[in-house]
């Protein structure tokens, strides 16, 4: 028995070691995740209090209160956006440095209570503007990200692997022998996956919203539009990956290469607002980031069409770019 076991063990090890892409991903993926997380969340200890500042950078740098230990200042360019953040406790204090110093503090926020004491100690003359409002629960903040992440996995793997399987099995070659064009085939795949993902996402939305007692602050119709365009963008990305290759290892590796950074950097689990600026720029490239940002804006902030239009345009443009590239590089058969 041991001889047979060893023979199979040895053959399987050879197979694994000679499958270079899989071996490479097995080694590089955990390393990449650890290094990325170190970059994003490394550095000195994080401040305890976040103060939004309305006013010039000069005034901000000159204010001694904003140099207190454990206080981080964040420039805010729009008073309405600042008030929204303080109401939802995503900042602890909003300070206006234009003219006579005044500040807004959320009387429902424990951190607001403490940081206000620090401000008064540094500038007793600052005028107080109290607001109230509960913080967004983490589960509600998480909800749009989870839905979007599920859409991403379904779109990328659901389309990418299916097309690859069709190509490897020869089914695509058989379809190629019919009047079906590549455009028709790809469009059918897109529509099939889109209808499926919309149904699943709608079902998940209803179920999770019922469980966590969530009500969207914005329009459901707008969410649907966002889901359609976001799904299209990621389905098109999946088709681009699967358009040409005939190897599970290569396609699997590429899909992992896309999904892992998106999952970590697109703000599914936690905000990356305090990570380095370049990380935020990279994150903004991902369709998932655009989808999650817009979904959170609609679901949590009640944002309208105008506010999420840039996200929608970005997703629509990437859809067209990915589809065009996918159609151009599409192969019916394994070369």
């Amino acid at each position, binding site marked *: 028995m041991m001889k047979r076991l060893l023979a199979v063990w040895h053959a399987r090890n050879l197979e694994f070691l000679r499958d270079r892409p899989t071996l490479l991903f097995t080694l590089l993926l955990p390393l990449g995740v650890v290094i990325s997380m170190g970059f994003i969340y490394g550095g000195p200890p994080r401040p305890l209090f976040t103060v939004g500042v309305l006013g010039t950078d000069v005034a901000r740098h000159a204010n001694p209160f904003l140099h207190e230990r454990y206080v981080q200042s964040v420039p805010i360019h729009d008073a309405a956006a600042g008030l929204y953040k303080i109401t939802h406790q995503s900042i602890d204090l909003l300070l206006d440095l234009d003219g006579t110093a005044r500040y807004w503090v959320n009387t429902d926020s424990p951190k607001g209570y403490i940081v206000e004491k620090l401000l008064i100690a540094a500038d007793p003359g600052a005028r107080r503007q109290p607001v109230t409002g509960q913080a967004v629960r983490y589960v509600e903040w998480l909800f749009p990200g989870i839905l979007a992440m599920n859409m991403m996995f379904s779109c990328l793997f659901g389309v990418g692997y299916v097309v690859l399987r069709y190509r490897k099995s*020869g*089914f695509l*070659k058989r379809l*190629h*022998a*019919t*009047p079906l064009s590549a455009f028709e085939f790809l469009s059918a795949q897109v529509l099939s996956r889109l209808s499926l993902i919309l149904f699943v996402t709608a079902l998940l939305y209803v179920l999770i919203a019922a469980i966590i007692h969530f009500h969207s602050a914005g329009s459901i119709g707008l969410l649907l539009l966002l889901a359609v365009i976001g799904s299209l963008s990621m389905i098109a990305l999946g088709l681009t990956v699967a358009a040409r290759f005939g190897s599970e290892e290569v396609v699997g590796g590429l899909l992992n290469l896309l999904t892992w950074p998106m999952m970590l950097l697109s703000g599914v689990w936690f905000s990356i607002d305090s990570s380095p600026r370049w990380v935020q720029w990279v994150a903004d490239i991902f369709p998932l980031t655009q989808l999650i940002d817009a979904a959170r804006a609609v679901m949590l902030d009640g944002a309208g069409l105008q506010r999420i239009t840039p996200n929608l345009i970005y997703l629509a443009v990437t859809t067209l770019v990915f589809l065009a590239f996918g159609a151009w590089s599409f192969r019916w*058969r394994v070369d």
Partner: protein
Amino acid sequence: MPDSAAILEVHDLVKQYPTVTAVDGISFGVPEGTCFGLLGPNGAGKTTTIEIMEGILPPTAGEVRYRRESLGPRFREEAGILFQKTALQDFLTVRQSVALFRGLYERGLEVDEVLRLCALEKLASRDNRKLSGGQQQRLLLAIALVNDPKVLFLDEPTTGLDPQARRNFWELVASIKARRKTIILTTHYMEEAQLLCDEIAIMDGGRIIAQGAPQRLLSEHFAEVLLELPRHEFPEVARQLPLKLIDASDRVEISTHDLDGTLRALIDAHVPLRNLRIRPANLEDLFLELTGKELRA
């Protein structure tokens, strides 16, 4: 050169891969309503040739014309294809698989009619993954027939089937042939080619080494009968006899029109005759004669 009345014409076809020339400048025509066989061993270039003719593989040089036009949308609509290996979409029944392909053509037969033609009515509700080899090939043939094609390509359709399933399939193809369809068949089963084909082209090393009606080719190359003896029972001294010998891997074949005289010569040379077989020549013998190689080597 291809026949000017041909429905399909192949002109100076070449397919070059980095290390091998799979098809090396072949030309022929397929007359409408006939069954044309491409014969040859594995690696002869049959499948490459037929895939270029089907329009799914681009040639390095040369051209295939359908009804005097380059292969285009009309050809796609009017061609039916059964590949050597094809997987179908999972989780579909036989009927759903046929209906899927019926939906890809403007014109064609009703799904029920195709199922009946291929004796698949009783299997219509079965998952296509749960069919036997012969049933699977009948389903693939049904899919190839779904557009009521003018030209039907069958690439080694009975490879891997048991003898009974193979014979059933031949009957099916014969019934399609009776409907005046043009059939292009590749095979390495000589019996299949002899039974079904009106004309054959024998390929070896990417070239056509003989072409014509099977019976005409046989009568051109062989006398009336073949005597077959196991090689190990054929003494070296008998090779000096004035006989036309053909060496196969495990046997020696003697082509003759004087059976009595040949038998007497063998007896005189003390060749043991207890395992002697006497049979008419077939296409396999023709291939051996032309190339010195066996077809299924």
